């Protein structure tokens, strides 16, 4: 690596950081993509430029300043990075852990600087940066949460792991190799290999964050394509796809049940209180039902006030569990009336539950049977669950 010129490497790195900061700001301001995370990232990149130094440009500065800026800068830019990462992944975790690590690190650096040692401030900042990057690794793994393939998760996590490894190696080096004090106090340049390594880690972290952001945009598009915009339930197309999928799984022994739902007297709400009340009622129902469903259940809005839930079953003929779920959904809606504009509007819904039949690729028979039960529930006085007799039971009877 001796053919490389270290000040030029540092300048290239500074240029890269500057461009990255501008790109994040542009994304935040123009496109409103992840605005807060973008601003944090931009700040992080700018701080990084200051913290890496530029070789000879700081030559005339006081030693204390030359020593303090890189250490505090590195710590600050890691903190900004981690905060941006949390925003980006919409983590609900409070930033208390970051504050603790950063506070202790800053304290260590200050104490080290005050003691006049060359080693202590570097050790403090390196250790805290290592801890923060480990937190970042955990954050990414959790945030992605198995929603991306293993390879992509690994690629996204790797830069942060590399930063942690770099920190660990540097800490070990500081402790084990004598003579580091002099390097630091004399303001010597890093070796070319070290400068290049740092540049690579910075650049790969930037890329990793950008790919996380693009992933977010793409999931948003998918969400918009598959969800009903008013209620957030699956739209009809997406529900039909899920149903076709479930029918295919039925041949392999994975059963499911359908519960068709229709809100009672919905037209009355619309006519009495206007469309906005109707919209609020739909949103209210979906919120309550979603809370009572598992993650594997699929709630779709088929149109108007008609919904359908696809309930995967542990046993193919386990109709009872589906009935229990439907009954729970019915009861929870009755228990929580809609509060709208100071009014309390009681809501209820009718349910029709049916099991699918094999060989019905698009699930039309299952939908029709559930629909028929729904009509029966309506006819029998609404706010109840009606269950279709399984075809298998009919055959044996």
């Amino acid at each position, binding site marked *: 690596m001796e*053919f490389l010129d270290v000040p030029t*490497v540092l300048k290239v790195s500074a*240029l*890269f950081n500057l461009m990255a900061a501008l790109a994040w700001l542009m994304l935040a301001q123009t*496109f409103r993509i992840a605005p807060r995370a973008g601003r944090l990232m931009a700040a992080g990149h700018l701080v990084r430029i200051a913290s890496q130094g530029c070789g000879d440009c700081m030559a005339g500065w006081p030693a204390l300043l030359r020593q303090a800026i890189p250490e505090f800068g590195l710590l600050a830019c890691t903190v900004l990075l981690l905060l941006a990462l949390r925003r980006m992944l919409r983590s609900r975790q409070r930033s208390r852990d970051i504050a603790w690590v950063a506070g202790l690190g800053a304290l260590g650096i200050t104490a080290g600087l005050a003691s006049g040692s060359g080693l202590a401030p570097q050790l403090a900042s390196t250790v805290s940066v290592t801890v923060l990057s480990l937190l970042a690794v955990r954050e990414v793994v959790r945030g992605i949460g198995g929603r991306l393939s293993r390879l992509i998760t690994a690629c996204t996590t790797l830069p942060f792991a590399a930063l942690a490894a770099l920190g660990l190696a540097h800490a070990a080096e500081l402790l084990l190799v004598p003579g580091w004090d002099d390097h630091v106090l004399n303001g010597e340049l890093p070796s070319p290999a070290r400068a290049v390594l740092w540049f690579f880690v910075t650049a790969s972290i930037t890329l990793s964050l950008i790919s996380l952001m693009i992933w977010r945009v*793409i999931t948003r598009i998918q969400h918009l394509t598959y969800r009903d915009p008013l209620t957030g339930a699956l739209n009809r197309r997406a529900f039909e796809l899920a149903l076709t999928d479930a029918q295919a799984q039925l041949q392999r022994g994975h059963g499911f049940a359908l519960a068709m739902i229709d809100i009672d007297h919905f037209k009355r709400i619309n006519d009495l209180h206007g469309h906005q009340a109707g919209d609020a009622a739909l949103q209210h129902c979906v919120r309550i039902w979603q809370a009572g469903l598992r993650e594997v259940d699929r709630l779709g809005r088929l149109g*108007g006030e008609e919904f359908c839930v696809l309930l995967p079953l542990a046993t193919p003929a386990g109709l009872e569990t589906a009935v229990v779920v439907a009954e729970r959904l019915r009861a929870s809606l009755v228990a929580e009336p809609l509060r709208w504009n100071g009014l309390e509007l009681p809501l209820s819904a009718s349910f029709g539950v049916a099991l699918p039949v094999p060989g019905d690729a698009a699930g039309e028979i299952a939908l029709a049977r559930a629909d028929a039960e729904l009509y029966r529930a309506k006819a029998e006085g609404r706010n109840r669950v009606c269950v279709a007799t399984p075809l298998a039971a009919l055959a044996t009877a």
Partner: protein
Amino acid sequence: MITAAQTQTLLAAIITIAGVATLVWVALALVARVAPRASLAMAFANATASAALTLHALRGVLPDALAYWPGDVLAVVSFALLGAAVPGITTRQVAWKPAAAVVAAAALVLLALPYDGDLRWQARVVNATGAGLTLAAGIAAWRGLGRTASGHRTPAPLALPLFLIALMMATRCVESFIRPGSTPDLREPTEFNHVFLWTALVLTLLQNATLAFLVMMRLILRIERLLERDPLTDTLNRRAFDQALDHAHAWLQRGRGYALVMIDMDHFKQLNDSLGHAAGDAALRQMVRELQPCVREVDRFGRLGGEEFCVLLPDTDIAGAALVAERMRMLVDQAPLRWLEQDWHLSASFGIAEAERGDASADAVLARADAAMYRAKHQGRNVVQA
């Protein structure tokens, strides 16, 4: 004083950044599936640039047969790919034929030149071809962006990096003619090389960033469209229509009136129940298709829910709205829905209303149009009522 280490570092930096950009574009193309063909073209452009510069940097180390002619041809290929990718991102069509012809011509010319001693003519061919290709791509991008840009966003800066790259390559070509001491070797520590390499580095970053932005913009436009359109009929959804309506109502106070045409398909529930949801959907799409020619650029066509639609006509009074609604009614009436080898007659009831100065909000106008539409239903449907 420029040292050899400085120019080598800059070369290494450009090679690295082009290499990393290659990986990013490949990921965008294959994993995220964003503009896959153009992204792949960008990936190859970066890869060939990286390879060409690597071969250039290793002249004297690698065998000459590998480092010279192939390196120069790779450089030309990289410019050609860049030129092909840029229009591809805006128009989805990668224009590779003219670029391939230029590359073939340049490769033949380079093959004819002897690779020994003075290599300035080879460098001139490479630089001039690069300048020409990027200039052509810049002009194409400028035109293409002008067409697709929506409203206020100015497209000009997005084609700028291409022009700058063309200018940079042209300068290098011209320099070799006017400065006697110029060298085609990028590793030589001359002032010109130093400035050139820094510019090249900045422009590599800039070019990749700009194109990435274009790709992002396409994603964002898709999101905006998804947010304001009804997926079934591609008319405005309720939220977007309400916004447009409020906007029009704000103009009412400033002296610009508007009228509404409320549209409700007749016997939709019957159709749905007897033929199924799919037929209902097809009927709605068919009706919207029939109505579309009556809707001007300035009008807003929205689906309020179910089988109910509304058209907002700015600068229109009740008489104008009546004309539009009557024409719409005829069009729907004349075009039956073809479903399962059979024609099903479609019709709709129309209610029209004009905004008046006394209307506190757009909801009042909407309610009048709604009431008129109900009167139309009571009159036996398939009519227009004011």
